[in-house]
């Protein structure tokens, strides 16, 4: 089920026409099974690059990543990924068929697939749109379908790249609450990327604060705030202040 992740001194360098770009430099961190890690940093600091390495889409140009002690490869089917990009859903599949995709790949029967898809569509409050095609949904709705799709086949590790950045504040608050509940219920290891301090403080057990050019980890902040967290409580605000100080000093 939930896996541990260990990144040892990982670097990534893009080769571009204009020369090499060091996007991530010697980052090390570890995530315990069922831990919620937030990676926090400004735009362009290498967050997506780190996520792509964790997902196995990019191979670190230096260092190594271990999941439960084994090196990462792309085809190990125990990860769910929610991408930063809206257009990640398959336009030729309805919302329900998108959510069923992972189960279908595993040969799960049609009835079981339908039932699971229904549950997760309900979770993201889109059960009414089960038969809609992605192009008929708003960007935020598509993003919620993508989350349901990544959860539906119950991967042990969930990698999420600013999944709620495009949602309105109200929906985002609601989604954050639901995500916490799903996480507490299913005990997945989650790596969650964001540039929003309040979001990180609300969700994380541990926050990695990154600095850009080249992307490095500037601080590792454990959060012991009890859950459910109240964004208006004094402790929460104090924590936010601390994290922000790390981000900007």
């Amino acid at each position, binding site marked *: 089920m939930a896996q541990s992740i260990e990144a040892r001194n990982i670097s990534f360098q893009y080769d571009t026409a204009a020369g090499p770009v060091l996007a991530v430099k010697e980052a090390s961190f570890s995530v315990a099974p069922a831990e919620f890690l937030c990676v926090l940093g400004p735009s362009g600091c290498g967050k997506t690059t780190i996520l792509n390495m964790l*997902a*196995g*889409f990019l191979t670190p140009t230096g260092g190594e990543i271990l999941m439960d002690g084994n090196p990462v490869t*792309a*085809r190990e*089917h125990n*990860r*769910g*990924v929610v*991408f930063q*990009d809206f*257009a*990640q859903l*398959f*336009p*030729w599949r309805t919302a329900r068929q998108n959510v069923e*995709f*992972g189960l*279908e*790949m*595993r040969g799960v029967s049609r009835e079981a697939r339908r039932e699971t898809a229904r549950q997760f569509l309900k979770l993201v409050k889109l059960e009414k749109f089960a038969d809609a*095609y*992605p*192009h*008929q949904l708003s960007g935020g709705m598509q993003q919620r379908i993508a989350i349901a*799709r990544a959860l539906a*086949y119950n991967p042990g590790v969930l990698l999420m790249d600013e999944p709620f950045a495009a949602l309105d504040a109200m929906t985002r608050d609601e989604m954050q609450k639901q995500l916490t509940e799903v996480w507490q219920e299913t005990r997945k290891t989650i790596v969650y990327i964001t540039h929003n301090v309040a979001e990180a403080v609300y969700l994380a057990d541990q926050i990695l604060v990154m600095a850009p050019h080249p992307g490095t980890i500037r601080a590792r902040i454990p959060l012991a705030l009890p859950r459910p967290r109240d964004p208006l409580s004094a402790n929460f605000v104090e924590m936010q202040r601390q994290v922000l100080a790390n981000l900007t000093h």
Partner: protein
Amino acid sequence: MSAPFLLVAAAWEAVAIAGIFPAKLFPSLETVFTTLAELSLDGILWAHAAGTLARLALGFLLAVGVGVVAGILMGRFQVVEDLFLPAVSFAYPIPGLAYAPLFVLWFGLGDLPAVLLVGAASCFVVIINAWKGVKAVRPLWLRAAEVMGANERQMFWKVIMPAALPYILTGLRLGLAQAWRILVVVEMLTAVEHGLGWMIFGAREFLNTDVMLSGVMVIGVVGLVLEKQVFERVERYTVVRWGMLTA
């Protein structure tokens, strides 16, 4: 939709009645339709149309089978692309008629060279479009499918095929047009037993312009039916419904 047809028909009639050209060369629509009716009552027209349609179907299916598979392999595997793209790019702009005589020498007269020529002449545009379609598949979709556990076969049928479909359909459309173009002439060249092309060119010997025009009309109608009933339907049911192409 019928208004433009009526307009052309009226203009045609006007020219025919005005007698600008000899009636033998420029028959009135009435004559053409009478001939059309006679030919179809005789069954001659059906025999010719059936021959042509059979060759068109076989040749085009050949092109689609070879073209879609080759194009997708080229798009999916760099080695295959490196191997075939130069040859495809070279052959693509050559008109099929240019190598038609060669096919006649190699395969003799009759249906075989006609079908093969239709296949050869129309497969390149199918290949090129299928190849481009695969190249245009969003890497994000491939990544998403991969991480969700799709194996190579599932990736092909459930991601690459639908993702490349808008391009593939374009290729099929252009391929079919190409197939028509070459088939009508090739039927003459390879002296098939029955065929609309054969009928049209044969009628020329006797200045039977009404027969020629009947053949042309049948080709036009078949083309129109294929476009409206096959391509547009498939499109509406797939890429348009998926929002990948606006109707």
